[in-house]
């Protein structure tokens, strides 16, 4: 059994124990609030000094219709992604997957009767995405997302996973919408780094 006594502050192999040292674990890295409608948002040269990344998004698209939110990692636009979801719309719950040809992580998916990233500024979508062990080159990247929107009579909640079949460290996050759709003015993307113990 692997165990850790949190009062010893000892280190053994890959076990770290900083005890009650409190350096703060969640660090804001970058925030982008769009001043005009914008087609894509990129976080480049992502710091490689954290253990996990968390992305928090609030906003809408400017098309008037719902759109799937796409995230591509390290500028990979190939068919190297797979996605699954669990969703509810206030009446029914559903689950599904996106096939092997998917060209991005889909935190909010407008396909398969889902409603995606909202196209109405009064019904903004919100999503929190966790990218664990993002610089671990022994692992493909699995992204977990929880999000949705509510429109006082309509709406959607969404727990999804996205797989990037590549073990490279994540250095670049690229967000876009299909059909030449822009993110609406005021849409905000906030990227956080989350430390590991001992870091």
């Amino acid at each position, binding site marked *: *059994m*692997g*165990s*850790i*006594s*949190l*009062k*010893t502050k000892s280190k053994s*192999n*890959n*076990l*770290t*124990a*900083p*005890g*009650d040292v*409190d*350096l*703060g*674990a*969640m660090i804001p890295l970058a925030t982008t609030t769009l001043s005009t409608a914008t087609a894509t948002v990129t976080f480049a040269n992502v710091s490689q000094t954290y*253990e*996990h990344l968390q992305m928090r998004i609030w906003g809408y698209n400017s098309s008037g219709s719902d759109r799937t939110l796409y995230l591509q990692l390290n500028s990979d636009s190939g068919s190297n992604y*797979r996605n*699954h*979801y*669990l*969703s509810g719309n206030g009446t029914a*719950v*559903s*689950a*599904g*997957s996106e096939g*092997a040809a998917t060209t991005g992580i889909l935190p909010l998916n407008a396909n398969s009767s889902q409603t995606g990233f909202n196209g109405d500024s009064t019904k903004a979508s919100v999503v929190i995405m*966790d990218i*664990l*062990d993002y610089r*671990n080159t*022994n*692992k*493909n990247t*699995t*992204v*977990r997302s*929880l999000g949705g929107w509510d429109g006082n009579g309509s709406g959607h909640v969404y*727990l*999804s*996973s*996205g*797989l990037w*079949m590549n*073990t490279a460290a994540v250095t670049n996050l690229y967000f876009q919408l299909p059909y030449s759709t822009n993110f609406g003015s005021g849409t905000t993307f906030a990227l956080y780094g*989350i*430390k*590991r*113990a*001992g*870091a």
Partner: protein
Amino acid sequence: MAHTYSKIATYTVGSGGIESVSFINIPQNYTDLLIKASVRNTRSGAAEAELRWTVNGSALSYSNRLLQGNGTSTSAGSYSTTFFYSGEIDAATATANTFGNAEIYIPNYTSSNYKSAMADTVSENNATSAYATATAGLWSNTAPITSINFYYSASGIWAQHSSFHLYGIKAEL
């Protein structure tokens, strides 16, 4: 400046894997606990395995509620058993080098109330089947939580490179 979100401990599974991972002597000076886990199990013949954990060495008095999708269909249910159940993570037949992604929140872990927990967990797999699970659980015991143990008992161990991360959340009191 006070920090509300503090890293407490990390465990990364080494070569050969390991049967269980424990955080013991958990500090009692936070309000809540948060666990992030990037994990895979060696359970044979399956693409998924249950993310199970116990507290304080107890195998009694756990109950769980779940909402789950498996890539095709959905289910909801309850689960009274000997552990907290926090969804499904990747196992032996899932796409190589792919790990489940889980977050577990344990509020008021030092209180004298029964202990609640919630989790959202996903497995991934380059196939139709993969799991997304939201759970709520209860340990019907008033003891403060001083240890947490992740284990799997059905023919699997935690695979190499699995990582478990424990954080403390401190409220303004």
